[in-house]
């Protein structure tokens, strides 16, 4: 699948450890990412922990290990210092704690591997047994089943050949039937059922998203809530593609993330109500918008004021609990520049005047999910984030701003016009080192920082 990606950070020589050290930035802690593997267990991982790790400073022909201490954490990555080096950082190494060559103390003895000190300190300590006893007794190490738990937490309820409904990237107001092709770290490569194959069998139309994305739904969802769905063009034959060769299986609701329940009583969104919304086609902009249609189960269709084509094909479906719809005045209250409809200027635009002019009312503030959540992100933190406009790409990114539950993400090396607003609980953002543990390709920063 590598041809489907852009650049490969490893091949390009990108290394998170030296990148963080050079920039002086912090990585967002793992506890910020509830959907990330081992998030719940990561509170047991901290500076001072002892591990057994591959010894890369030895002339021995066989693979040997040595004991090291975690001296710094950055997402899944840890800066380790071999025992015996004390305050000397010359042989410190960045390791991904989720990868195979980092183990709990005791692993080597159980697996008949030898612990051998690095050449630099081998002769420095005369009595290694006493030295290690002093350093290890009463210290903490990884749980024995650390890697088993890691594997368990990466299980996915989907498999190749599962059918679902997903937003149509060529017309965002409708959904389309798609089939799961590839799964990497819970990210699904979806092939539209009538996406078509090129002359050499290549897929002409696909979509990537996390299995917990709000853009994917079980088969039958569109009909149930009243969303438009494109019927599959039966003339397009995909049967030569591996994902379509098996008996396809329809997905069911319990394979998807359950959204917060909303009550659509007398006081719900109504057609014509005004709000502020993240532009689905320009995710760095929060725009003046309108409710265009109310669906069932708490979903609404929203249009961006002043730029609509007029046939509804650019409306976008949001759940009432979505972070991407905001009450009028949200931008002003949070010092964000609101993107106005053409013909309006920042100096003279006010919501009361606009509402009067349009003969519209603002959607009631209580309908929005703007509850503050203690997410733990702060500006300047580094993460791995999906470019939602090109969702197959997971990129090196920085949290530029935190406003309530919204994060403004900057893709390192790219112009600010590519920045994107995301929810702090978005499943499309990951801790540093996530790509390495899942085998997903990471896009390195473009050009010098």
């Amino acid at each position, binding site marked *: 699948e590598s041809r489907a990606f852009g650049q490969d950070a490893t091949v390009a020589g990108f290394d998170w450890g030296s990148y963080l050290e050079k920039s002086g930035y912090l990585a967002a802690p793992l506890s910020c990412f509830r959907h990330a593997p081992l998030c719940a267990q990561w509170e047991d991982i901290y500076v001072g922990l002892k591990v057994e790790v591959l010894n890369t400073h030895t002339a021995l022909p066989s693979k040997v290990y040595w004991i090291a201490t975690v001296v710094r954490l950055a997402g899944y990555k840890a800066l380790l210092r071999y025992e015996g080096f004390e305050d000397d950082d010359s042989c410190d190494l960045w390791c991904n704690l989720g990868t195979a060559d980092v183990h709990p103390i*005791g692993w080597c003895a159980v697996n008949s591997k030898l*612990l051998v000190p690095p050449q630099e300190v081998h002769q420095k300590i005369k009595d290694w047994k006493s030295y290690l006893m002093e350093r290890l007794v009463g210290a903490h190490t990884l749980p024995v089943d650390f890697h088993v738990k890691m594997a368990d937490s990466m299980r996915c309820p989907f498999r190749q050949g599962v059918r679902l409904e997903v937003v149509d990237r060529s017309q965002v107001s409708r959904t389309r039937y798609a089939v799961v092709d590839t799964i990497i770290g819970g990210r699904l490569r979806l092939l539209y059922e009538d996406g078509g194959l090129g002359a050499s069998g290549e897929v002409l139309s696909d979509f990537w998203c996390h299995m917990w994305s709000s853009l994917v739904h079980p088969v039958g969802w569109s009909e149930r809530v009243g969303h438009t769905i494109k019927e599959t063009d039966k003339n397009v034959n995909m049967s030569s593609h591996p994902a379509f060769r098996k008996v396809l299986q329809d997905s069911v609701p319990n394979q998807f993330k359950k959204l917060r329940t909303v009550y659509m009583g007398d006081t719900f969104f109504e057609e014509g109500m005004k709000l502020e919304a993240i532009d689905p086609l320009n995710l760095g902009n929060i725009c003046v918008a309108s409710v265009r249609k109310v669906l069932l189960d708490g979903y609404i269709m929203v249009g961006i004021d002043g730029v609509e084509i007029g046939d509804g094909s650019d409306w976008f479906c949001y759940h009432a609990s979505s972070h991407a719809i905001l009450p009028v005045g949200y931008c002003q209250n949070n010092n964000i520049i609101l993107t106005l409809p053409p013909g309006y200027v920042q100096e003279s635009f006010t919501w009361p005047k606009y509402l009067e002019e349009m003969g519209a009312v603002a959607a009631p503030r209580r309908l929005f999910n703007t509850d503050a959540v203690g997410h733990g992100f702060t500006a300047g933190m580094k993460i791995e984030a999906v470019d939602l406009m090109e969702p197959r790409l997971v990129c090196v990114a920085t949290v530029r701003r935190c406003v309530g539950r919204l994060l403004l993400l900057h893709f390192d090396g790219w112009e600010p016009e590519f920045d994107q607003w995301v929810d702090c609980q978005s499943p499309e953002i990951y801790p540093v080192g996530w790509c390495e543990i899942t085998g997903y390709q990471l896009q390195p920063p473009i050009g010098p920082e």
Partner: protein
Amino acid sequence: AADATGRKWEQKQVQIKTLEGEFSVTMWASDDKK
């Protein structure tokens, strides 16, 4: 046992096998039963 942050730990006897020989030490690992 729980530490000041509320983390629960259990004591483990672990083996260390070096070129100089094998010995055991008592360490703490997170409590699997928590």
